[in-house]
């Protein structure tokens, strides 16, 4: 007995001392990784939230002073309404157990209150939903009835955005969307070129179309006229805020504290910088001057275009995609104004819709998972991945276009023929600030 005991003591106890900390260590590792994921995802959510300030100042800067209060209220309300409706309805439709087309559980987090990750996940997804909603505000600026805007804002955060989101992103939680199970491979949209930006962009296009142009935007021959924004500095500050927010928008979409955050942030930055240069040179060649508002649009265009592929493209790929987006955005702004005769005061349709589609398709061309070492094979056409991914991208982008235009059309036509979409001519002339809100943005001594 004594011998056995000493044998055990001599041989196994040291082993036990050696092992115990190891077991404890690995449990600690899991806990700290979970905590890191929560901290990183929440931090990213808070920064993406701040993009609301960017969207508001860009829109205020590129429009006239007499409508600034209205824009403040629109941006404040689409976030507030979006936060509530996404919690009550949208989140369940997007991430609940799904039939392939929309989720049917998790409304107001029901049945999941014990799962702590869901709180982190929903705050991150809420700020994304609100981003999509706020894109539309810019295209419809300076002439939309406030109450009509509130109704629109409810429907995009409650239904339009989440249903499409469930198609592409449902499996990030408990759903499963049809775009994730395409025979040609899952639709690739890492941080939302399509899910967030294109959907917002196509709704913006539909809204601006059914509203009609601002008074004085086109002369009697239908040629576009300039309605200069009242504060380019404010617009620039807004773009810098958005650029800052984009690091969190893209790198936060990992929702995991991993080494790829640095790569995604770097790729994102190259996209924005290249977009800025692409737009500036295009404007310089076409208009003889490096137009500031177009260059600012170019930054956003570049950022939107690398949002889908930020986790799967190389830095060089981002450079090319972003630069081309900068060129496309300027041409698109001109085309929408000159040929479609649609008045989009801030260029939201071109930035988010057109460059969102470009970024989505670019995944099918530039995806380089193999080269980046995150998967065995690259799926991009240019990296030997064949054409399958590109087909998936075309399907996803077309679905977004059809869904955005279709639902947008239904919504805006209904509003137009019920409570009305547009303010009176007199109100537009005086400004929405005084007529809708009874106040001005910039008081002078009176």
């Amino acid at each position, binding site marked *: 007995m004594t011998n056995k005991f000493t044998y055990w003591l001599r041989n196994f106890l040291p082993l036990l001392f050696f092992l115990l900390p190891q077991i404890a260590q690995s449990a600690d590792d899991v806990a700290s990784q979970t905590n890191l994921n929560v901290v990183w995802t929440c931090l990213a959510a808070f920064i993406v939230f701040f993009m609301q300030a960017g969207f508001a100042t860009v829109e205020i800067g590129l429009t006239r002073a007499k409508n600034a209060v209205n824009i403040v209220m629109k941006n404040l309300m689409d976030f507030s309404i979006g936060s509530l409706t996404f919690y009550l309805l949208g989140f369940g439709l997007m991430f609940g157990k799904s039939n392939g087309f929309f989720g049917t559980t998790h409304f107001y987090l029901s049945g999941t209150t014990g799962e702590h990750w869901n709180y982190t996940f929903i705050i991150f997804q809420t700020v994304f939903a609100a981003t999509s909603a706020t894109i539309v505000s810019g295209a419809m600026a300076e002439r939309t009835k406030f109450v009509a805007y509130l109704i629109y804002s409810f429907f995009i955060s409650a239904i339009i955005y989440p249903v499409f989101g469930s198609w592409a992103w449902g499996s990030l939680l408990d759903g499963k969307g049809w775009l994730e199970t395409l025979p040609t491979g899952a639709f690739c949209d890492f941080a939302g070129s399509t899910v967030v930006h294109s959907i917002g962009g196509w709704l913006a296009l539909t809204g601006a179309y059914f509203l009609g142009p601002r008074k004085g935007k086109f002369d009697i021959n239908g040629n*576009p*006229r*300039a*309605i*200069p*924004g009242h504060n380019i500095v404010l617009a620039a500050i807004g773009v810098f805020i958005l650029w800052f927010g984009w690091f969190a928008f893209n790198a936060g979409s990992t929702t995991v504290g991993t080494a790829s955050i640095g790569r995604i942030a770097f790729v994102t930055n190259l996209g924005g910088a290249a977009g800025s240069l692409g737009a500036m040179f295009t*404007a310089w060649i*076409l*208009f*003889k*001057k490096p*137009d500031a*508002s*177009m260059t600012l649009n170019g930054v956003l265009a570049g950022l939107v275009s690398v949002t889908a592929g930020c986790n799967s493209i190389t830095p060089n790929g981002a450079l090319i995609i972003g630069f081309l987006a900068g060129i496309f955005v*300027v041409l698109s*702004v*001109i085309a929408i104004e000159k040929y479609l005769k649609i008045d989009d005061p801030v*260029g939201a349709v071109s930035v988010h819709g057109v460059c969102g589609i470009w970024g989505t398709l670019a995944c099918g061309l530039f995806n380089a998972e193999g080269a980046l070492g995150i998967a065995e094979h690259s799926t991009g056409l240019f990296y030997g991945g064949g054409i399958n991914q590109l087909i998936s991208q075309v399907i996803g982008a077309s679905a977004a276009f059809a869904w955005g235009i279709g639902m947008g059309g239904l919504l805006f036509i209904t509003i137009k023929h019920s409570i009305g979409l547009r303010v009176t001519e007199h109100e537009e002339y005086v400004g929405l600030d005084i007529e809708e809100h009874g106040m001005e943005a910039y008081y002078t001594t009176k």
Partner: protein
Amino acid sequence: MKLVIAYIKPDKLGVVKQALYDNSIKRFSVSDVYGHSDEDGIAESYRGIEIQVDLINKIKIEIALNDEFVEVAVNAILEAGKSGQLGDGKIFVLPIEQAYRIRSRQSGKDAIG
């Protein structure tokens, strides 16, 4: 009593003000105005669409003076406000019928200063 109204280039306000101070003229008001004369407008462009800005920013100075100061004031502005290019501005001298100082109820020459 005369009212001198001068329209000058905005960037000349500093030197014109100093010239008036140097001649002991310290009571005047200044406002920001827009006008058009022989100067052409400025061609600007916004998002690729040209805008002809034809009203140009000027500074308007109004000085109420007793007769003996009028010539000094006008000369000071003519001197300091000149760049020699189109758009330097104009000076008008108008008679003043009556003047009052609100605080002390003084009137006429005393009110002007």
